[in-house]
């Protein structure tokens, strides 16, 4: 493949750092809360690694594409869509139409589930699409696990960059979207939006999130939460920040606390200290507390531990907490369906510090060792 469409959603992910759990329709609120556009950095992380791979890019003007290509030092591109200063989903769709008319063989885009859905509206299954993850939620499986992994997938498509260019399987894969309104009210509703085509390399491209609902899941959650509630009670000097999810929710429940389903809540000695914390709140707590542990669950099948819907826990927060104080939890069934875990915190060095394997608490006093996808960012 040589002729590639390239598109960036400049506002993708902005809602995440300020605890908005999405940016769709909330751009103004995100700006008001102090969010800055950050997707360009992730796009640049990919593009600067493939600048000499011989691709010919077809793109949009300004922050929707051209600015990144210039920064990455990529020569010889065509701008087929003039983007306005502030872009909307209609611009994404119009740009993709332009890409198709310009004869691209594939589209590389940077955004979240909303961006993937806009692309899919136009592209359907005509050509493959690949996402550089930069949104708040990325439950579709058209995304690479990290910007670096996206670069690796692209490299393997290029005779100029791949050591020996592989025939990458193009698979039909799910585009899903989360009902943002329900999500903000603590309910996770994903729906299948359609099947796109996407290049797939195991370990580099993520799987679709699965929500497991078996009876055994409830038993396993109970066992995990019983154990961790004992840990919390046994360490009254430690502040615990519990991440989103029903498994972390059941730890709070064991402690007699009601936790928000999708937010980060803090507790100490089984007393609630703060709910729905954003980055600033967490940094404030870290200033005050001697020792803090973070408890996060994995996203089933997809394998994300940090970096999908957890943008509040920024690299700055994670570094202050310390990798050794991060407790990862998941039920055995979820782990069985999730061959590899990955970290995509936005800081490649931090992602790498988790090592090749991590220990995941999977039952009462039981952990499992799980491999971590090689860090490519």
């Amino acid at each position, binding site marked *: 493949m040589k002729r590639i469409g390239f598109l960036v959603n400049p506002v993708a992910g902005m809602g995440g750092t300020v605890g908005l759990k999405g940016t769709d329709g909330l751009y103004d609120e995100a700006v008001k809360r102090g969010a800055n556009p950050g997707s360009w950095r992730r796009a640049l992380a990919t593009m600067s690694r493939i600048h000499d791979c011989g691709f010919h890019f077809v793109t949009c003007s300004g922050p929707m594409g051209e600015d990144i290509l210039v920064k990455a030092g990529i020569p010889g591109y065509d701008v087929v869509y003039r983007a306005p200063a502030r872009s909307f989903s209609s611009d994404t769709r119009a740009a993709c139409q332009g890409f198709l008319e310009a004869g691209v063989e594939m589209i590389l885009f940077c955004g979240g589930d909303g961006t993937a859905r806009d692309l899919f509206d136009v592209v359907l299954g005509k050509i493959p699409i690949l996402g550089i993850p930069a949104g708040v939620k990325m439950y579709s499986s058209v995304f690479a696990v990290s910007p670096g992994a996206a670069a690796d997938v692209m490299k393997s498509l290029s005779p100029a960059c791949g050591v020996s260019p592989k025939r990458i399987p193009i698979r039909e894969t799910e585009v899903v979207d989360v009902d943002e309104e329900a999500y903000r009210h603590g309910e996770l509703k994903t729906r299948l939006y359609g099947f796109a085509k996407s290049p797939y390399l195991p370990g580099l491209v993520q799987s679709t999130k699965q929500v497991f609902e078996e009876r055994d899941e409830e038993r396993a959650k109970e066992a995990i939460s019983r154990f961790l509630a004992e840990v919390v*009670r046994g360490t009254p000097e430690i502040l615990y920040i519990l991440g989103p999810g029903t498994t972390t929710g059941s730890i709070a429940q064991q402690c007699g606390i009601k936790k928000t389903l999708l937010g980060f809540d803090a507790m100490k000695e089984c007393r609630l200290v703060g709910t729905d914390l954003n980055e600033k709140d967490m940094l404030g707590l870290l200033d005050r507390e001697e020792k803090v542990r973070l408890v996060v669950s994995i996203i089933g099948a997809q394998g994300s531990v940090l970096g999908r819907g957890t943008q509040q826990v920024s690299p700055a927060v994670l570094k202050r907490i310390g990798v050794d104080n991060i407790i990862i939890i998941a039920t055995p069934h979820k782990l069985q369906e999730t061959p590899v875990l990955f970290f995509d915190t936005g800081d490649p060095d931090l992602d790498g510090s988790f090592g090749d394997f991590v220990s995941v608490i999977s039952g009462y*006093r039981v*952990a*499992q*060792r799980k491999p971590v996808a090689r860090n490519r960012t």
Partner: protein
Amino acid sequence: MDLMKTKILLDEEEIPRRWYNIMADLPSPLDPPLHPQTGKPVVPDDLSAIFPMDLIRQEMSPERFIDIPEDVRDVLRLWRPSPLYRANRLEKFLKTPARIYYKYEGVSPPGSHKPNTAVAQAYYNMKEGKERIATETGAGQWGSALAFATQIFDLECTVYMVRSSYAQKPYRKSMMQVWGAECIPSPSTKTRSGRAVLEKDPETTGSLGIAISEAVEDAASHPNTNYSLGSVLNHVCIHQSITGLESREQMAQVDDYPDIVIGCVGGGSNFAGISFPFAGDKLTGKHPDVEIIGAEPASCPTLTRGLYTYDFGDVAGLTPLLKMFTLGHDFVPPSIHAGGLRYHGDSPIVSRLVHDGVIRAVSYHQSEVFDAGQIFARTEGIIIAPETSHAVRAAIDEAIKCRQTGEAKSILFNCSGHGHFDMSAYDAFYAGQLVDYEYPEQLIRDSLSRLPKIGQ
């Protein structure tokens, strides 16, 4: 040294006539077992409700050697002396200068080292006039060994088999049936201890600790019944010493002595068997440099992560308190395929030797253990039990170290049993379904920090 020899054999008449008791060579006596109610050291009478007096005497014996009754030796002739193999093909595969030997205990009728003590225990119970023995079994090796031994001496046998193994290894249950024993999945509704566990968690996978509680309760509540334990206790280690004693003779035949002795460790019996005669040589200064390694699962890392303290041998707290490495008697290890190594505690003697630095311990994840089992099967031909594969893993690692350093060390390990009833575990390995369980040590310590201490 005969480099080409594959099997090093002893004649039937060379079966040892005496067991070795390492307690005689410990620099100071073991901390005594404590009565679970009084907390005072147990006396023989405390144990007589469930054990025959001959075994109680052995349990407390300071004698270095104990005669093996001729009736027991006569049964042992069915498979003893077991062969010692030189692992020529494994050495070649590993490209190691090390000389690797393994004592193969899979030749016994039940397929493991377990009948070495099962026969002796059944004999002493028969001699005392008992009619029935109750016991527990993890992977089914011990249960089938005791079933085999009790039918020889015309005793009844009831085996409480850890539920996860009962489901994983149905043919072990069939073997017990062939030898006339009754096999019950544990926890069961037959005992108070079993019912208590089921009430708390009806879906529990069970554990050796729970099964021991059931068997002890069964024995204590039936006058014609004694209890029998397949590992952990001193008299079991004494009976198992026959493997190490034979191995030492067999290695002497080829003019060799091990630099490293390895066994897998659950309760410690096969490990004690292969290693204690050599540990004795180390303690008495005959071979001070011999290195002894116990290999255990990372999911149940008693020796590598446990605390050296008094704890119960079972979940319900019916057994005496033993000074040993323990993960806590209420710890239910994850359901690994090496079911025989799922025990929260360890032999007090093995524990003491680890604590004193005479022995060191290593731990492995399931997948690396099965990988070693596969290498062994593809080089030496024998498909071994997952428990045994822990010892093979350690032996391979030591042999690879020799390749790196160029040292031609002599490595001996106990190949404690075959894996013919573990094929579903191998299937899981090939399907990529093995789970690498771990023991979250720090969090467990945190969770226990506010609980009352036992035995202190």
